[in-house]
């Protein structure tokens, strides 16, 4: 117990020293930005920790959840586009929504008629026909709407509501998506969830990228409104400090709530399910439902963090969601920090983000020294595109970190703590 505490403390102090060094080296403005971004990613990491650390659910599609949440947040908080509302497009969209609602309901009903004695094959056929019909009719309503929107106003714009609400809705979007995916895959083996989420993330990205009427697609939406005044208005340091404090408050709230949950019967149940599904089922835990609950809650948090991250960047660009930056980076944060330990996830998020952002200047300097040395000692001319190649090392470093952590600290730097009652 004592040793663990000491370890935690010294790691945190070490991290603080590193952050302080970065303040000195890179200046306040940059260091604050790095912290703000790391803070947003820490929220995402907490969300993943709920899934991977608490419930053992491996979500390999964080990128998709961040993307959909960023979209939700953009939709809510971006200023209203009056051109769109004055056109006839909203009418068409309403019509499409109605068609989807009715068609969806009919499809769902048809998919259940086998309970009333209709042969399964006929049911399947009818369901497929209904789904196709709904799809085509909705498409028919959408085509003119999309054309009008894209011609007149670019995209539908937002609702101009507060940013905070946007983040919340972003989280809800991610949670709803998670619910659908969870329903499909949670009954299956663990790697299926990884594959399914990996795929869903790409689907979400493809949709956001190509639904120009809704998201402006590749033409990107900017500037996204901030919850605090932007650097343009009040300067880098103050604006970022304000943003950072909002993220910090969010982290604290989420952390406290998750810790409370972790130490409560709910957390105990989740750990029980993770340990032994068979036994959990036998003592009355509805395993699949609870896992789904975890998956949804986790993705809600991921969504909030993702929305905050994208808002900080100030631009919604669907092509900007990349597996390496938005999935693997978060994954390594949780694994390195220690899955099942919330403090570990926050710690991991900060440390990994520092490594990630600092690896670039560090690699450049190292490569330059290396090149000088090569030149001077062996008289070998370094390749011309040395700088470019140095930057590619980042990906390698992240990969190496994953392997090293798995090998030397499989439980992370701050491992999960056993809950003990004295």
């Amino acid at each position: 117990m004592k040793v663990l505490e000491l370890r935690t403390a010294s790691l945190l102090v070490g991290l603080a020293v590193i952050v302080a060094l970065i303040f000195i080296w890179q200046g306040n403005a940059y260091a604050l930005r790095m912290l703000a971004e790391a803070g947003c990613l820490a929220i995402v990491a907490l969300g993943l920790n709920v899934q991977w650390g608490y419930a053992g659910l491996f979500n390999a599609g964080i990128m998709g959840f961040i993307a959909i949440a960023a979209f939700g947040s953009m939709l809510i908080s971006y200023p209203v586009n009056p051109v769109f509302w004055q056109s006839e497009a909203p009418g068409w969209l309403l019509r499409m929504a109605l068609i989807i609602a009715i068609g969806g309901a009919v499809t769902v009903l048809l998919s259940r008629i086998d309970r009333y004695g209709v042969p399964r094959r006929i049911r399947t056929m009818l369901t497929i026909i209904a789904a196709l019909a709904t799809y085509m009719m909705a498409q028919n309503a959408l085509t003119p709407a999309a054309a009008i929107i894209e011609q007149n106003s670019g995209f539908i714009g937002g609702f101009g509501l507060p940013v905070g609400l946007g983040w919340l809705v972003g989280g809800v979007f991610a949670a709803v998506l998670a619910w659908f995916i969870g329903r499909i895959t949670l009954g299956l083996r663990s790697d299926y969830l990884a594959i399914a989420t990996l795929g869903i993330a790409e689907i979400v990205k493809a949709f956001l990228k190509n639904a120009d009427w809704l998201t402006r697609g590749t033409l990107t939406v900017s500037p996204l409104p901030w919850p605090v005044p932007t650097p343009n208005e009040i300067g880098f340091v103050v604006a970022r400090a304000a943003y950072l404090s909002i993220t910090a408050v969010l982290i604290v709230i989420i952390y406290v709530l998750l810790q409370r949950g972790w130490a409560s019967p709910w957390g105990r149940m989740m750990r029980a399910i993770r340990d032994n599904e068979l036994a959990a089922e036998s003592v009355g835990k509805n395993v699949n439902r609870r896992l789904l609950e975890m998956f949804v809650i986790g993705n809600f948090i991921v969504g909030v963090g993702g929305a905050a991250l994208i808002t900080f960047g100030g631009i919604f660009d669907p092509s900007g969601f990349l597996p390496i930056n938005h999935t693997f980076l978060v994954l390594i944060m949780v694994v390195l920090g220690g899955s099942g330990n919330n403090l570990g996830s926050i710690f991991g998020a900060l440390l990994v983000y520092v490594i990630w952002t600092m690896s670039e200047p560090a690699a450049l300097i190292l490569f330059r020294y290396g090149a000088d040395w090569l030149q001077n000692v062996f008289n070998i001319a370094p390749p011309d595109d040395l700088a470019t190649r140095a930057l590619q090392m980042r990906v390698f470093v992240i990969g190496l970190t994953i392997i090293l952590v798995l090998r030397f600290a499989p439980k992370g730097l701050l491992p999960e703590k056993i809950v003990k009652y004295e």
Partner: protein
Amino acid sequence: MKSITRRLLASATLGAALLAGTAYANADVKVGFLGGFTGPIESLVPPIFAAAELAMKQVNEQGGILDGQKVDFISADSTCADATAASNAADRMVNSEKVTALVGPLCSGETIAAANNAAIPGGVLLISPAATSPALTGLDDKDLVFRTTSSDAYSGEVLAKILKDQGNENIAITYVNNDYGKGFADALESSFKALGGTVSAKEAHEDNKADYRAEIGSLSASGAELLVVLAYVDGSGSTIIRQALEGGDFNKFAGGDGMVGDAIVTNIGEGKLDGMVGVRIGNTTSPGTEVYNKLAKDAGLDPNSSFGAQSYDAAFLIALSIQKVGKDTREGLSAALREVSSEPGEVILPGEWEKAKKLLAEGKDINYEGASGSHEFDKNGDVPGNVIHMVVDGKGFKDAKTQ
């Protein structure tokens, strides 16, 4: 415990080394380059960076900047796609490296992100050599964001007109699914329709996929006689044209500036593309292009690589502006840029750094006529569209008018 101490020690040493590294280069004038060294256009970036580096190398070799100082030209990875990473990289340039001005970023999305997040609040002049999206025009940029390439909208119009004049009635467009491709394709489609032509298919494709046969099939099924490819030579562009040729789907092609590069002929084979139409932003009346072509070839670069000339110009213009201001400061650079790039003044061609420096020292006006045009910036920081009609003939693209 032991491992922690070691880690702390290691990180401290590293930090010290880095600090030392930063201090060591302090006396020089710092200019930053942002580009997507990783990510979707990673294959396009190195030549663009090399072209800008060439400009800075010339500056350093020809007596240096200001009072013989060197330009320290540093680069960072803005990933093209990830706005967070782009603004992070830009921010480090602006706030940590404290650069005087920035070349790049290249993609429009990342340019907006970098500008809004770092360059504009930091008061840093930013010249993008490749961001072609119209969205940049309307940016509230405090007169800090410029570009040496014109907006897609104009290129689209010109291409439409060329195609229509050549007697094409029915075209198919495929574009790389990003802001560049999309903007260009939209402009081309509407212009071509306005001229009375038919666009029977207009489809996006993802860059860097292995295979586009299915997409090509869909395009060719539309019955169009000519395929416009709005992509990058080193990206999907070559693949699509090659597969379309191999499959016998199209034999007439046209392309935007991303496609104008001699590599396309090397990739596909000499003689197979003769007559392919291309447009590129630039100015044939400017002798700068030819000068640059020679300079680039001597330096071992491909003069026709996508956005290479624009990148060279951006870097050279920044050096000129700094020289014009006379000291290493961010203030007044925009105004200086407008002065050195526009009339009146003695014409400076690419590579003529010594001459420019001398003229500036004498207090004379100069007017840079660059590799990719004369760069008369308007109030939004855009250059007026000046589009050249190119055509493939033999080994590569030639100016159609000189034929």
